[in-house]
């Protein structure tokens, strides 16, 4: 981990390991999340994000390591930990045949609220998520975005100190996505700490105070969005090439720029992280000229989280990774 100091960690993990048979889904993960912040776990499908959340939310016992929520060990005392945490999983786990209000009230009762308190808090929550008008309609009539908001808000009734959101915007339209983002930010303003997983770089960039990039069960890099971008150098130079001559280009450009040059096979782009944009661009030009290579195109841009992600994760798409690594049975995956 970087030398970042978390002064008031409300969520911690030390050396968490989860194995499914031969597959290590979560591999010695450490975490420390500052109270009142949003931590984003960014990674491709099958990276171990869901499995890690399941451990932290007391659904799965790790094979090694320990984790605490609000100072409570989730393995030693899961019952107490559950009073302090809320979980909104990858699927909107709301009952279609109950109304929005009934769904939230039911969760309230299961958080041990009295019937009266549960009713009162439900009203507050429905107002907060803009579902007052739809509150007495069955959830079966809701749009995907409304269901997600309801699902997320249902857990809020227990006033959890830590909320786990597993891919809160996967599968919903862009406009509803912004609605969820607002809700998450609103939550944090109210003092809740959020750990969310996402495959969307933009989401992590907009929401997360700190980001951990996870792949093959390991957190490979961690920092704020700006820190992560800075590791890529100040500028990215993208050279579009004829892939038949990739080796010649790579030889010619070796040693130019800062850090590791990567190749995007889909778009035939060589990405070169560089500190000084103009100077490095000229250096690239001179190197190519010496080697008598004329690329299709050259562009420069400021690094995005995309670049970080592509640089640090394995470039083989992990969609083929065994399904259990994300804690899903194959049957469930097929239902998506």
């Amino acid at each position, binding site marked *: 981990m970087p030398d970042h100091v978390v002064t008031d960690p409300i969520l911690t993990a030390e050396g968490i390991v989860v*194995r*499914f*048979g031969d597959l290590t889904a979560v591999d010695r993960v450490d975490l420390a999340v500052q109270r009142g912040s949003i931590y984003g776990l960014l990674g491709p499908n099958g990276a171990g994000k869901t499995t890690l959340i*399941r451990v932290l*939310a*007391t*659904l*799965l*016992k790790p*094979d090694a390591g320990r984790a605490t929520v609000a100072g409570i060990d989730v393995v*030693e*005392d*899961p*019952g*107490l930990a*559950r*009073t302090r*945490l*809320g*979980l*909104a*999983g*990858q*699927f*909107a*786990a709301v*009952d279609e*045949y*109950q109304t929005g209000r*009934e769904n939230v009230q*039911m*969760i309230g*009762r*299961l*958080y*041990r609220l009295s019937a009266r308190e549960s009713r009162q808090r439900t009203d507050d929550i429905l107002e907060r998520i803009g579902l007052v008008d739809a509150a007495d309609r*069955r959830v079966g009539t809701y749009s995907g975005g409304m269901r997600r908001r309801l699902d997320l808000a*249902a*857990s809020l009734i*227990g006033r959890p100190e830590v909320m*786990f959101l597993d891919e809160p915007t996967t599968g919903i339209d862009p406009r509803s996505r912004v609605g969820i983002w607002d809700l998450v930010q609103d939550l944090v303003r109210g003092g809740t700490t959020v750990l969310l997983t996402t495959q969307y770089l933009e989401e992590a960039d907009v929401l997360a105070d700190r980001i951990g990039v996870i792949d093959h069960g390991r957190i490979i890099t961690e920092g704020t969005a700006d820190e992560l971008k800075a590791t890529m150098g100040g500028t990215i130079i993208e050279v579009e090439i004829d892939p038949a001559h990739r080796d010649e280009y790579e030889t010619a450009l070796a040693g130019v720029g800062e850090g590791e040059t990567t190749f995007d096979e889909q778009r035939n782009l060589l990405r070169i992280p560089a500190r000084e944009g103009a100077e490095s661009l000229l250096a690239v030009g001179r190197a190519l000229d010496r080697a008598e290579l004329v690329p299709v195109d050259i562009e420069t841009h400021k690094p995005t989280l995309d670049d970080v992600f592509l640089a640090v994760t394995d470039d083989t798409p992990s969609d083929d990774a065994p399904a*259990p690594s994300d*804690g*899903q*049975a194959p*049957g*469930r995956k097929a*239902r998506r």
Partner: protein
Amino acid sequence: MTTTTAPATSEPGSHIGLSEAFTDAMVITRRGIVRILRLPQLLVFATIQPVMFLLLFNFVFGGALGETLPPVANGEYINWLMPGLLVQIVTFGAGQTATGLTEDLSSGVIDRFRSLPMARSAVLAGRTLADLLRNAFVITLMLVVAVLIGFRWQASFAGFLGGVALALGFAFSLSWLMASLGLKIKNPEAVQSAIFIPVFPFVFASSVFVPTDTFPTWLQAFADHQPVTVVANAIRGLMLGVGALPAGQTVTGQVWLAVAWIVGLLAIFAPLAVRLYRRAVI
């Protein structure tokens, strides 16, 4: 799934007492009842189908079979059929416990419940209790229709009530068996076919519709000893009297045997279902 997760057998500091566990179970029971009332396909399955069975079997087979039945049936097939049909209906309906649970598993609802500070037993207790109430409702409805088309208990009213209680007890124990199956198989479609096929031989190769003494010997051997027949005979004995039972059986003996099946099924499948629920990782 071959996870190495140890079942959370004891959870120190769960802080959940009996009264909390009861409240949680009631919340889930209510959820189950709302589900049955609001999903039209469930309500249809729960009400129209049993009544249809009752009417069809009675009017199609009644004429041909009425004369051949033991005298306690009073020449009316409905008197013979009704006690058996109670067992048939709860056996057919029991699969709903399994499908409901698998739906909750695949929709992530079980995950949500497991992340809440609620009693671990509540999801299963609530589900099976809601299904018991559904069965009580269906049985009441069937009995009303049966009385309208001529059913009369031939023994005592107490015997009649005892028979209904046995049917409900059997339904409850089957619910736990089905809960175990659902949690084991996990996939909603797979669980439906896994349940539907074995249910048929148990219901038809039994004394539900006709006495077993005309079956071929090999089939009779199975039919006489399987739980559907045992419970059907016990209910029939209670409602119609000892004359409805095969020679050598007593009402008390059959009732004890039926109770033993019910208790036995519960003793095996209730702990199994709870164990499977605790480690239901999907």
